[in-house]
């Protein structure tokens, strides 16, 4: 298999076949994570820069573990402590990184389109680990991987409700793109202040009340609520949000009988999701974390080994 993409900027660049390749590759790596010695030499001698210009714990750690389990050397670079904080432009920062000749740059940035900006300026692979409100492709792929573990490979006919702050969510946008491509019906549910004005243009059905949005849903993805949204005038307060939109076992009564619950984390318990539901048997939240390492191993492997495969083809 010759992976055709230099970079992973969003799931919209992937074909269904590409997605299947990622899923199969991740499945093959998942087994490594269960071994007593969780390391293979696949990417030995390769360098991965983890360039996180915005705070992140989960995604950065997940990529770091993924790289190390494949024996790549990973280097962390945060905005604090980097030249960006001294006023250096993003262009100059990435050209400096490029000059050190890494094999991949995993990047998180507060501006939509930032990963695309960097990818056009460096020759190594760029993996988008979240850019502004735009895209978070590895999160969408790991969510899909998690759901396929439960539902099998064919998701056609399933209904997934995405609940919460869609307007400011890169996770939502990538999941909508990926799930609709695979034949899933996607519903969005949020107060109007947390939805884009033209939310239907994203290709999903839009709800402003929880109960109809959950009816017969096969899965519910809660989104993280940035607590400063109430200060921006988008919400009265968290209590009011929870009264209307916090996902509880009672509110899931009209969903599909074996409905699954997902959340990209970190969770605001009692705000986005009731604490008992987050820990319940139909919660896939920790499965998502575990899937994340396998999917990110797959993504690093496919992108970093792409050139060698191309040369020998």
């Amino acid at each position: 298999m010759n992976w055709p993409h230099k970079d992973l900027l969003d799931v919209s660049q992937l074909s269904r076949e590409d997605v299947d390749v990622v899923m199969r590759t991740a499945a093959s790596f998942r087994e490594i994570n269960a071994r007593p010695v969780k390391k293979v030499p696949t990417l030995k001698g390769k360098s991965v820069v983890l360039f996180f210009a915005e705070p992140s714990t989960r995604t950065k750690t997940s990529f770091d573990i993924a790289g190390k389990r494949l024996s790549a050397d990973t280097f962390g670079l945060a905005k604090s402590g980097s030249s960006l904080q001294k006023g250096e432009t993003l262009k100059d920062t990435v050209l400096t990184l490029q000059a050190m000749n890494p094999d991949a740059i995993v990047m998180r940035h507060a501006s939509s389109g930032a990963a695309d900006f960097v990818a056009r300026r460096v020759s190594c692979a760029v993996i988008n680990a979240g850019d502004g409100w735009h895209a978070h492709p590895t999160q969408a792929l790991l969510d899909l991987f998690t759901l396929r573990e439960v539902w099998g490979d064919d998701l056609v006919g399933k209904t997934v409700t995405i609940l919460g702050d869609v307007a400011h969510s890169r996770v939502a946008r990538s999941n909508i793109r990926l799930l609709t491509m695979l034949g899933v019906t996607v519903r969005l549910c949020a107060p109007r202040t947390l939805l884009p004005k033209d939310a239907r243009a994203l290709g999903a059905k839009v709800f402003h009340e929880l109960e109809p949005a959950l009816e017969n849903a096969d899965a519910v993805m809660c989104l993280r609520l940035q607590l400063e949204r109430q200060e921006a005038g988008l919400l009265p307060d968290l209590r009011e949000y929870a009264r209307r939109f916090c996902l509880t076992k009672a509110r899931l009564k009209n969903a599909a009988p074996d409905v699954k619950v997902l959340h990209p984390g970190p969770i605001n318990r009692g705000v986005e999701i009731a604490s008992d539901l987050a820990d319940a048997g139909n919660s896939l939240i920790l499965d998502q974390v575990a899937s994340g390492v396998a999917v990110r191993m797959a993504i690093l492997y496919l992108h970093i080994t792409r050139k060698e495969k191309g040369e020998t083809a």
Partner: protein
Amino acid sequence: MTPPDLVVADAAVPGRDGRWTLVCAAGQVLELVPHDPAARFPEARVIEAKGQLLLPAMTDAHTHLREPGQEWKEDIASGLAAAAGGGFSNILCMANTDPVNDNESVTRLMLRRASDAWPHGPRLFPVGALTMGLAGKQLAPMEELLAAGCVAFSNDGEPVADTELFRHALEYAADLAPVIDHCEDPYMAKGAGANEGVMSARLGLRGQPDVAEALQVARDILLAEYLNAPVHLAHVSCRRAVELIADAKRRGAPVTAETCPHYLTMTDAALFGYDTMAKVNPPLRTDDDRLALIQALREGVIDILATDHAPHAAHEKETPFEDAKNGITGLDTALGSLWELVRLGQLTAEDIAQRFAWRPAEIFKLPHCRFAPGDPADFCLFDPEQSWVVTPETLRSKGKNTPLLGQSLTGRVTLTAVNGHVVYELARAGA
């Protein structure tokens, strides 16, 4: 009678059949007469137009020339070079320089720089600040600015949010010079570089709704009517604003309005791929807005065209979208980009003469040429068939920040004259 010293022979003229010859002397028009191949002008420089279009030189009521303070983007000399190359004889330059043009010393510096660099034109007409430092707190000394050479007042770039202060600004300016308002509700538009709509939703960009513009347009219309004080509405970009202006004009409200070539020729589809060159304020809107603006321009609801020429250096656009500066460089490409609309039958050459030359000069009381005897010999020649590719080298502005880079335009200014002085000739300028 002064003998002719400059003649343009064998030119097409908008709104007139046949070929014409423009005869000028001592910087003024002597006459515009049907072309006679046998006519001789032994003491004049005779420019053979060979069927090119003879247009009145244009007035750009809205440019940013960046001097003083940000000369790496543009300076007055390079801005006027771009103006000459674009076919302009008059340029109004906005006050958001550094320092702000809120006192006579800055105004006089601008005028001196212009006369030093381009003694024969294009003419520079500074726009004074409406409020001190454009801070929206205290009125600028408008009479002082007027006496120093300003021809209008504006807080362009920093909309005045305080309606009470804006009211007083209109009242105070009413006896001095027109007020140009940047119509944007600053509370609704914070940090947005994209139209709020389908494209901003897909790209995950902060959007500026068209109502942010329309709200301020409505405010300005109501104040203009209430005070009977004129307001000129800058860079109108959307249908909602057009509809408000049309209603206001039906009632006789003292408002005038402008739009820019990029709002007539592009939509927010240009943002696809996060193209920072297409990031402008107000943002590029939808095709429905674009068509509404074209119709409004033809009908006179929108009075004039202006470039909102906003030059930036390469590094200021070579950033992620949300970090990029707003603005498109526009003087060099204004006529060439608009000509596509003429080719499509959506505008006429007469529309361009009316909206980009005569009407703006009337609104701001500036010299202009209608080809009548005694008019200043301000004109340009435009070759409507000449194709050219927009490259950094073909732009005389220091700002190369346009989404047109790499595109081919059909129609090009080949010569510009101000007061009978040829200030630009493509054949000599090259590129």
